[in-house]
């Protein structure tokens, strides 16, 4: 089945694709070619049009003009069925797995192998068919493993295996590593390499430029819905990519602290959380420093943040905020004490997407924009407008729906909600996940400014570059416990990882 495809023949050609949504232009005359057996990295800031381009390839969205050529067949409108029969498969950022089914059932969903005159599912045949595919992607789980038992990284391997099962020739990976740990990322990289060796083209979308340097043969950049340039294998460098994405150079990503570290803002002593009742947590966060919290997925970082913020319960131990006990039994209590959380999943927990930007900015502090319990639209707008200017939220009107903003700007709305109040400690949980480079830099600057102003800044991140670049000190969690603390001079990928996995 693995026909040796001609490595120079274009598998897929996009010509002059344009697409506009309600009042908004997402793509404008974009042309792109994909060759067999190449890894094409697609980069661009959020809002550059990557997602729209991918939706068009998937047949989910129809372009307003332009066409797609596959195997010398020209398509003006490209449907989901046409996309699938052309061999285009997706591995999504948000995984589309059904965790009430097992691995094989997920793999053959909608294409179940049937047997007998009743046409019932042939579970055995499906398991048998799934096995070799799982081996090809280096999976260590079995065809009959329930998906609920798989980790995020394993689910991704399942999706790749599923793509192989439909004989995909082009696999599109959208931010595949955003939730993976370092070692899982390495596994994925080797899977990508083996797909390439089989002649499968991979479109790799990521904001993590070091990964792209590692795996891509060619880089294609989008900016404001237009093609912003291409890089061949030998030209793929950090700076070149950033220049294409934002159209200028970025001087420095990370700013050093402006003042010496002061007294402790947050202290945890003998803390046990309901999520990890057996682990004991103790650490201090000082004013003037950015404290990074690293660890593998599942090490209990988010759980710890949520316990401090009052979402989850703290079973025992003391949490002190600037020397006073903090008893946050609910997020409301935490917020009243000035402890804010920028949650990991901004679409679920950070924002009410289907409502106006100004509503989101004021949501946590509505009494401040109301008179005698009656919300004042003008006060609300003024407050949001203030944050829009301060944080450079890219929109012309704070009355617009938050869902219309790009990821980076949505995250700024979450930040605006907290910055318009009186922060004493802000916990950033994966603050730059799925966010473009330019917004990332702005968020780093903001964290630094907050720390310099004496606000406690705690940053949970799985992005090793970010942890090492941004933090002044890092505590590493392992199975819910503090495995160690690293000062700025001790910070390196190797040291963080050593503590995270517990190896000697």
């Amino acid at each position, binding site marked *: 089945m693995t026909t040796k495809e001609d490595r120079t023949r274009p598998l897929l050609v996009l010509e002059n694709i344009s697409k506009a949504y309600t009042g908004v232009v997402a793509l404008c005359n974009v042309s792109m070619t994909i060759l067999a057996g190449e890894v094409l990295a697609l980069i661009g800031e959020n809002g550059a049009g990557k997602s729209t381009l991918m939706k068009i390839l998937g047949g989910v969205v129809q372009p*307003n003009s332009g066409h797609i050529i596959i195997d010398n067949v020209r398509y003006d409108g490209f449907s989901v069925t046409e996309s699938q029969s052309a061999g285009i498969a997706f591995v999504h950022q948000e995984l589309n797995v059904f965790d009430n089914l097992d691995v094989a059932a997920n793999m053959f969903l909608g294409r179940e192998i049937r047997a007998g005159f009743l046409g019932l599912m042939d579970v055995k045949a499906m398991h048998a068919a799934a096995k070799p595919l799982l081996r090809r992607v280096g999976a260590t789980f079995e065809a009959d493993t329930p998906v609920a038992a798989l980790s995020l990284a394993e689910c991704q391997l399942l999706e790749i295996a599923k793509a192989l099962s439909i004989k995909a020739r082009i696999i599109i990976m959208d931010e595949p590593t955003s939730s993976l740990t370092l070692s899982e990322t390495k596994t994925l990289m080797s899977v990508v390499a083996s797909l390439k060796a089989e002649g499968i083209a991979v479109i790799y979308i990521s904001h993590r430029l070091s990964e792209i340097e590692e795996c891509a043969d060619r880089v294609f950049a989008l900016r404001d819905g237009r093609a912003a340039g291409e890089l061949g294998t030998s030209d793929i460098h950090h700076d070149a990519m950033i220049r294409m994405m934002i159209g200028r150079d970025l001087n420095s990503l990370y700013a050093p602290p402006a003042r010496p570290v002061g007294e402790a803002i947050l202290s945890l002593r003998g803390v046990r959380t309901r999520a990890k009742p057996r682990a004991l947590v103790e650490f201090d966060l000082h004013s003037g420093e950015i404290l990074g919290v690293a660890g593998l997925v599942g090490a209990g970082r988010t759980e710890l943040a949520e316990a401090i913020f009052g*979402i989850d319960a703290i079973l025992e131990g003391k949490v002190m905020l600037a020397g006073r006990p903090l008893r946050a039994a609910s997020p409301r209590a935490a917020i009243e004490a000035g402890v804010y959380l920028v949650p990991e999943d901004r679409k679920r927990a950070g924002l009410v997407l*289907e409502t106006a930007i100004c509503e989101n900015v004021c*949501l946590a502090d509505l009494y401040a924009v*109301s008179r005698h319990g009656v*919300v004042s639209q003008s006060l609300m707008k003024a407050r949001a407008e203030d944050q829009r200017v301060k944080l450079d939220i890219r929109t012309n009107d704070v009355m617009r729906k938050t869902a219309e903003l790009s990821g980076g700007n949505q995250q700024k709305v979450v930040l605006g909600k907290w910055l318009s109040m009186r922060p004493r400690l802000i916990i950033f949980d994966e603050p730059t996940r799925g966010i473009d480079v330019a917004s990332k830099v702005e968020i780093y600057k903001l964290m630094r400014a907050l720390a310099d102003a004496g606000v406690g800044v705690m940053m949970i991140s799985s992005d090793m570059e970010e942890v090492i670049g941004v933090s002044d000190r890092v505590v590493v969690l392992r199975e819910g416990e503090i495995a160690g603390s690293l000062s700025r001079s001790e910070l390196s990928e190797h040291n963080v990882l050593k503590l995270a996995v517990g190896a000697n």
Partner: protein
Amino acid sequence: MQKKDFGLAVLIIVVGAVVYLRNPLFLSPINLGNTANLIGLFGLFAIGQGFVIMTGGIDLSVGSMIALLGVLFVDMVGKYGVPWPAAILVVILVGTLLGLAHGLLITKLRMQPFVVTLCGLLIYRGAARGYTGEATAGFPFGANYPALEWLTIGRSFGVPHSFYAMIIVGTVCWFVLHRSVFGRHLQAVGKNEDAARYSGIRTGFVITAAYVICAVLTAVAAVYFAMFTRSVQPSSHGNFYELYAIAAAVLGGFSLRGGEGSIIGVVLGAVLLQELQNLVNLLGIPSSLNFAVMGAVILTGVLADQQFNRYRAKRRAMIALGVLNRKEAAPRQEQAAEIICPD
């Protein structure tokens, strides 16, 4: 007034005009008065239902609650001689407790609203029938309660007081839902409960409050209904009324997923439903087709609204692209200011 409400108002006027042309009795003072009375009665608890649907929940128990509270009220006043203001207070108090029970079961014990209130529907109906032993509860022959009757079934300037009651309740609720901090919290909880909780909103309290509001308004409606019918037949009184309330809310632009809807919308929804009932009577359509007409109109209305929105979104996209093509020749900087690309 939102665009949606305006569309509904236009529909009400159009339907009214058609009915009037076919049967001029539609605009006779008697018919208008009677219809206004029904609008008031049904509007009262439909508004309450709106609060619950706003949270993404549903209250199926209101019809049975109207029967149970109606039986209690009639018995208290007619049989036991409880002064009617006290009886109203008791009925509202019982309603509050029932709403509180619904809210707490849903928020504290994490039960599904459909299940909780479906059980309420069964329990309250059963309780009403059991309490009366299937007998109709009524006031003693010749009994008079002038003040109570004035308040409930009386009329001022030809308009029934139930209609005034609905207007007053509607105005207060409009302020609560659309202007107060609580209303914002309610809408946020309905749209995204997690994000609301992470923003420090006491989501459990807000949701429970919605069920209490619904039950209290239902209790008030129960008194009006009891006085309107003068006697309460426990097995049939208020049957299917929950569906009228849900239908009014849906017609009024509420989404059963929560977070969307307006008080004006639900009131207009209640108006349209009664207008349709009236249409069936006045146009000589067999009254057995009553529900079928209502169902067909709701289905068409919701469908038309959805299709219209899709059409508008499509048109806006085309316009945006047109703008782009025209600006193509213009300097790039200008464009950057014009075009906002989504993710």
